[in-house]
C-alpha cells in the first residue's frame, strides 16, 4: 500500500483515500447494525443467537477498524500530502474515530447489560420489551452477507463471550487511545462538508402506524384534510365563477 503511494503519487493517494473511505463507510454500517442489535440485549428477544450475532458483528467491526486505522495513520503520517487530500483524510479520521467511540460505548453497554442478564442462568428473567422478531437480517447486513446466516450459536457461549467481550472492549479502548496519541489531528479544525440536514429517505415512518392511536400526528392529517377541503372549495368557487361568466356571456 505504501509502495503504491510512493509510485503513483497523487493518483495513488486518491485511490488510497477512496479505499479508506469505503472502509470507513463499511465500519459505519457495521457500527449502526451493532447499535440495532445491542438494543435487544436483555429484552424479550435476547438469546444465545443474539449474542452470537453480536459477537460476529463485533468481530467484523474490529477487523475493519484495524484495517482502516492502519491505512489512515499511514496517510496522515505522510507529511507530503496536499492540503485538500489532507483535509479529506482528516475528515475520514474524525468519522473513523467517532464510529470507533460509538462502538466502544455500545460494547460497554452490552457488557454491563449482559452481566445483569446472564443467559446461562436458569432464573434469569428477560424484560418484556415487546420485541418479537429476529435480528438475523441486521446481522446479514452487517456482515455483508446476501443471505442471513442461520447457524445456531453454541449453547454455552455465554460466559465465554462475556470474558471475550471484556477483552475486546479493552482492546478497542486501547486502540482509540493509541490513535489519539499517534496521529495529530486537531478535531476542532476539521470542518464538515455535508449538509446539516440529511435528505429524507423513504416515505412513511414506522411511527405513523401509531398515529391512529395518538393525538399529535392528527395535526398532519388535519392539515391534509384542511388542504383537501380548501382545494375543494376553491375548485367549487372556480366552477361557480365559470358558470356565472358563462351565464353572463350567454345572457
Amino acid at each position, binding site marked *: 500500500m505504501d509502495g503504491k503511494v510512493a509510485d503513483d503519487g497523487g493518483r495513488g493517494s486518491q485511490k488510497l483515500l477512496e479505499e479508506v473511505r469505503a472502509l470507513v463507510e463499511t465500519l459505519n454500517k457495521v457500527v449502526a447494525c451493532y447499535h440495532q442489535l445491542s438494543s435487544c440485549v436483555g429484552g424479550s428477544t435476547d438469546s444465545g443467537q443474539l449474542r452470537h450475532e453480536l459477537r460476529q458483528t463485533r468481530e467484523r467491526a474490529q477487523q475493519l477498524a484495524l484495517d482502516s486505522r492502519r491505512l489512515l495513520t499511514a496517510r496522515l503520517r505522510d507529511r507530503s500530502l496536499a492540503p485538500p487530500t489532507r483535509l479529506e483524510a482528516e475528515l475520514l479520521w474524525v468519522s473513523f474515530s467517532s464510529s470507533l467511540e460509538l462502538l466502544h460505548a455500545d460494547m460497554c453497554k452490552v457488557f454491563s447489560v449482559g452481566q445483569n442478564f446472564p443467559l446461562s442462568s436458569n432464573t434469569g428473567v428477560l424484560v*418484556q420489551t415487546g420485541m418479537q422478531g429476529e435480528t438475523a437480517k441486521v446481522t446479514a447486513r452487517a456482515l455483508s452477507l446476501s443471505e442471513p446466516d442461520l447457524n445456531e450459536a453454541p449453547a454455552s457461549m455465554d460466559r465465554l463471550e462475556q470474558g471475550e467481550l471484556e477483552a475486546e472492549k479493552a482492546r478497542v479502548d486501547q486502540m482509540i487511545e493509541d490513535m489519539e496519541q499517534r496521529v495529530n489531528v486537531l478535531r476542532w479544525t476539521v470542518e464538515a462538508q455535508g449538509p446539516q440536514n440529511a435528505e429524507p429517505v423513504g416515505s412513511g415512518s414506522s411511527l405513523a402506524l401509531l398515529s391512529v392511536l395518538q393525538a399529535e400526528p392528527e395535526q398532519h392529517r388535519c392539515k391534509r384534510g384542511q388542504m383537501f377541503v380548501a382545494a375543494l372549495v376553491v375548485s367549487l368557487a372556480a366552477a361557480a365563477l365559470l358558470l356565472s361568466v358563462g351565464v353572463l356571456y350567454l345572457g
Partner: protein
Amino acid sequence: MTIRNVRDHGQRYRPRMACLKKVEALVLEMQDPKSGVKSQTQRLVITTIPHAITGEDIVAWVANRFNIDAREAQSIATLMVAFGYIYPLQDHKRLIIKADTSLYRFQTPYFWPAQQWPAEDTDYAIYLAKRNIRKKGVLELYEQEHYNNLHKWMNHKWDFIVMQAKEQYRAGKERKKPDRVVFDCQERAYWVVHRPPPGTISAMDYGLERLTDPNADEVKKKKTMDYYRRIVIFTQQCIMRSRVKSSVSLGAIVKYITTCKNHDPFLAMCLPSNPWLTDDTTYWELNMPNVEIPTKMRVERWTFGFRELLSDPRGRADFRLFLKKEFSGENLAFWETCEDLKWGAAATMKDKAQQIYKTFLAPGAPRWINIDGKTMDITVKGLVHPHRYVLDAAQTHIYMLMKKDSFGRYMKSTVFKETQKKAISPEEHKFSDAQLEQNAKKRKPNLSPIVLRQREEEEKARLAASGPMDITQLCKFTAPVPHLAVYTGICEAQLSHGRERQPPSPGFPTLPNSAACPSPISVAIDSTPASERKFEGQGGSAAAQFPSIAEVPLETRVSASARGPDESQLASQKSRVALSLSRFLRRGCGNASVLASLSPKCHSAMGGRVQPLSREPLSQPQPKRIANFFQIKVDIPPECRIYPIDSEDEENECTSRVRGTVKEIICPWESITKQDQAG
C-alpha cells in the same frame, strides 16, 4: 466545544442516580410471569405488539408488593416512568402514570438510565438526524434548536453523524415492522427522558458529579494502630466540644419562630400580595430601603431586636433621627463608619482609619464617642497599623451601649411612636385570573444595579454633606489647651456651681509635676497648634497670672509666640481667662501663688470637687492621669480613664465656642513620627 466524548470509563458518579439500582430490581420483579404484571397486546392498525401493560395494573402491583396505599403506589410508579424504565404508549411526552387503562411498556435494558453513562450528545444528534431523515420537519421547536446547537458545536463530526444516522435508519429497516415500531418507541422514550422538553421537571436532574461511586463498597483498609488511634482522637474531640442543652436551643428556636412567624412570606400572607406569585410589585415598592412611610409589619420587625432595627435602612434612619434629638448621634455614626471600614475597599482603609480616629476617637474630636479606657487603648494601639477589624472592639462596645441604652429609650420615644402611628398596612390584593395574566404580561425588569448603586452613593453623600455636625457632643477634655490647666479646677468649681460655660478641657502641658519628662510634652504642645494658639493668646497677660506656665521651658512660649495670633481666639481666650479668673477669685482662692499650686490641683480637681489647696500628695496619681492624655502622643503606658461626658450638659455650653475653634487632632502614628524626627 466538545472535542470528543469524555471517556472516563464511567467514573463520573452522579449521586442522585444511586437509587437506580433499586428501581431496576423492582422492574425485574415485575417481569416475573407468575407474580409480575400481567401484559396484554397492543393493537395497532396493521399489527399487534405484545407486552403492553396498563397503568392500573402497574399501580396495583406496586401497592401489593410494598403493601402501601394507592396514592403512594402511584407516585412510585410515576418515578419509574420518570426515570425511563417504563414508557407510556399514548401521550409519550408526559412521563406520569395514569392509573387507568392507558398502556405502558417496559424499556429495553440498553436504554435504561445508567449511573455511569450520561446520555451523549452525539447519540442525540444522530437520533435527531434520523428523525429528520424519516420525515422532514417533524422535529419539535426545542428539538430543532438542540439540533442547530449541536450542529454548531459538533460541526467537525457532522459528516459522521449524518452518515451514521443514514446507516442506522437502513439497519432499522432490516427488521420486521412491529419490531421497528417498538424500537422507535423505545428510542423516542429514551430521549424524552434524557432530553426533556423545556419547562418539564426531569428526574434526570442529578446535581453535581462525584468522583467516587456512592454505591461501591468502602475499600477495606488495613486497620492498623494508627487508624484506630486517629479514630479515638476524633471521637474524643467530638465529645469535648461544647454543647448546648437541647431545651435551651430548642427554646430559642421556638421563641424565634413565634416572634417571626407572621413575617415569613412563606408561612403568612404577604401584604398586599407576593410579587413572585402575582407579578405585582407593590410590595417591593412599599418596602424600599428609603421609603418615607414604612409598613406596619416592618415597624413591628424593628421591635424584635436592636439588630433588626439597625439592619433595616429605614429603621436605622429613624433611629438616627431619634439619636439626633438626643444628641448622641455620634454613636451610630461611629458604628456606621466602622462598618464601612470593615466592608470597604482595602486601598482606602488607612485613610479611613485616620479619618475615624480624627473624628471619633481622639481627645478633642468633634464627635467623640464614649468608650472605656481599655478599649480605647487597644484601639489606638491597633490604629498604628490599621487593618480592617482594628475598630472591632470599639464598635462592639458602642453597639452594646446603643442596644442597652438608646434602643430602649427609642422604643419609648415619640419618634418611634410617631412612626408607628403613621405606618401603613396595605390591603390585600385579590386578583382574578385574568388580572394575573395581565400582570404577567406587564412585567418589566428592575432598575439596573448600577443605577441603584449610584443612587445610594448620592444619598450617602447628601447625608454626609448635610452635616455630620448635627449636634455633636463635646468632651470636656477635647482640646489640649495648656492654659486651661488652671481652668480645670475652675471648671470643676463651676460645675459645682451649676451649668455654666465650660471651656474645653485642657491638656496639661504646663504641669511641672507631670511624671513625664517635659520635652515630649512640649513636643506635644508643638504639635497642637490650636492649643498653642490659645497659649499664645494668653500672651503677656497670662504670663503674670500663670507662673506655672512660666515654669515651662521657654521654648514653648517662644514657639508659641512665633505663631500668629488668632484674634478671635485671643479675644475669647482673654474673656475666658477673665471670667474664670474672676470666678476663681470669687471663690476666695488666692493669688498667683495659689494659682501656681493650682496646676497640680487641676488634676485633683478633675476627679471631683475642688480640692483644698494643700492637697499636694494627691497630685501624684493625678499627673499620671493627666499624662494619660498625652499617652496617645507620647506612648506612656496607660491607665486611662476618660471621663464620660454627659452630652446634654456639654453641648449647649461648648457648641458655640468650640465650633469656632479649629482643632487639629493628630493621630498617634503621626505624632510618633514627628517625635522621631524631632528627637
